[in-house]
């Protein structure tokens, strides 16, 4: 019973953190950005009419409100039917993916904005400094991620000898390896891939890549540890704690991922009207 109550509290925290607190923070940042960097002074930041941004901000808020209310309904249903265990575990996972939808739609809208920025402005900027993967991966964190992965492989080999009927065996290694390969692909794409925001200053891009690489490494470690923890809880017959662990894990992911939305240090001067943009080709030495 006490585990059930703890799960309800943790799940409530998941609902409030991901569908209320962070969306409020993001909407607040969007509003502040609009006030401190208005379209009149930073026209390149707003390739669409002002109403579009107000509408999309409102839609983002509404989507989160819907998910928030749905979360409360799910929590009430769990409470009424005294559900925990496998059901609660699956619900916490399913609900988390639902919570991701507004954030993903926001990210997609950013991508559309960048595409429009590229279309509107014919000028392109790039740095003459080469980028290398090794410049962005902190040796300590990279090493920690590698050691965590290797330790997980040994852990699976160790658990395998007990012949638990529920244990997926080497499929756990396959799953975690695939997940890390996906993270690796995102990491490579962020370092060597296309520049999405055509106006972004090089220093900002470097800072963004550094932040993303750190976030991915943290998530890789957290995900690997979480899978090992799930297996350990099952092995110790503590499955009732799994829903609590999964909910806490998602909240940890949200806290880590939210760092990607920080734009306090960004250089907004690049979004001001460029006097050279009126005369294409100017300033090119030949």
């Amino acid at each position, binding site marked *: 019973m006490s585990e059930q109550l703890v799960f309800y509290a943790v799940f409530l925290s998941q609902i409030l953190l991901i569908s209320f607190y962070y969306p409020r923070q993001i909407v607040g940042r969007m509003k502040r950005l609009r006030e401190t960097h208005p379209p009149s002074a930073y026209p390149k930041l707003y390739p669409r009419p002002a109403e579009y941004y107000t509408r999309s901000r409102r839609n983002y808020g509404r989507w989160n409100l819907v998910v928030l209310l749905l979360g409360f309904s799910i929590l009430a249903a769990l409470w009424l039917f005294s559900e925990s265990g496998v059901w609660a575990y699956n619900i916490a996972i399913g609900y988390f993916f639902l919570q991701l939808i507004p954030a993903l739609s926001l990210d997609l809208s950013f991508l559309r904005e960048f595409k429009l920025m590229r279309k509107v402005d014919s000028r392109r900027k790039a740095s003459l400094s080469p980028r290398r993967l090794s410049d962005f991966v902190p040796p300590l964190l990279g090493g920690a991620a590698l050691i965590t992965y290797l330790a997980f492989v040994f852990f699976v080999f160790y658990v395998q000898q007990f012949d638990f009927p529920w244990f997926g065996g080497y499929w756990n290694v396959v799953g975690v390896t695939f997940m890390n390969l996906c993270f690796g692909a995102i990491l490579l794409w962020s370092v060597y891939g296309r520049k999405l925001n055509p106006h972004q200053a090089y220093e900002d891009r470097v800072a963004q890549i550094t932040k993303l690489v750190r976030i991915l490494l943290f998530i890789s470690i957290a995900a690997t540890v979480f899978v090992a923890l799930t297996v350990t809880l099952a092995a110790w017959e503590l499955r009732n704690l799994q829903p609590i662990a999964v909910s806490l894990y998602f909240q940890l992911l949200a806290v880590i991922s939210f760092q990607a939305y920080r734009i306090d240090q960004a250089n907004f001067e690049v979004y001001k009207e460029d006097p050279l943009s009126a005369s294409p080709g100017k300033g*090119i030495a030949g």
Partner: protein
Amino acid sequence: MEINIDIDAPVPLFAQLMGQIKRAVQHDQVSPGDPLPSIRQLASDLDLNNKTVAKAYRLLERDSVIQTRGYRGTFVHPDAKANCTIDLSAWVTTKLGETIAELREKGVTDSEIRIAFGTVMNNRPQ
């Protein structure tokens, strides 16, 4: 050091790129031996075709402004600053202008010059 190109400008993209890199060398924004981004990185950052950047790099290498050191990457040539002053495009334009003026003086029509130019260019050794 940041380079800017304009995809709508009448100047070809590879020429803009070459000009920007030469200017960076002339203004000491990059020094001899400095590493340069890979073709792929520059093409991704500028949203250009890899072939455009490769062409600019090839011509800069021909002019000894940059040098490729196998898998280690591309670097600014030790004599880049001196070599930047040699503008082969401008030299070719001047040379062709002089030749065309001489041909016109001899009474050769523009049409005949174009045909002859095309023939010579098409028959050039590969």
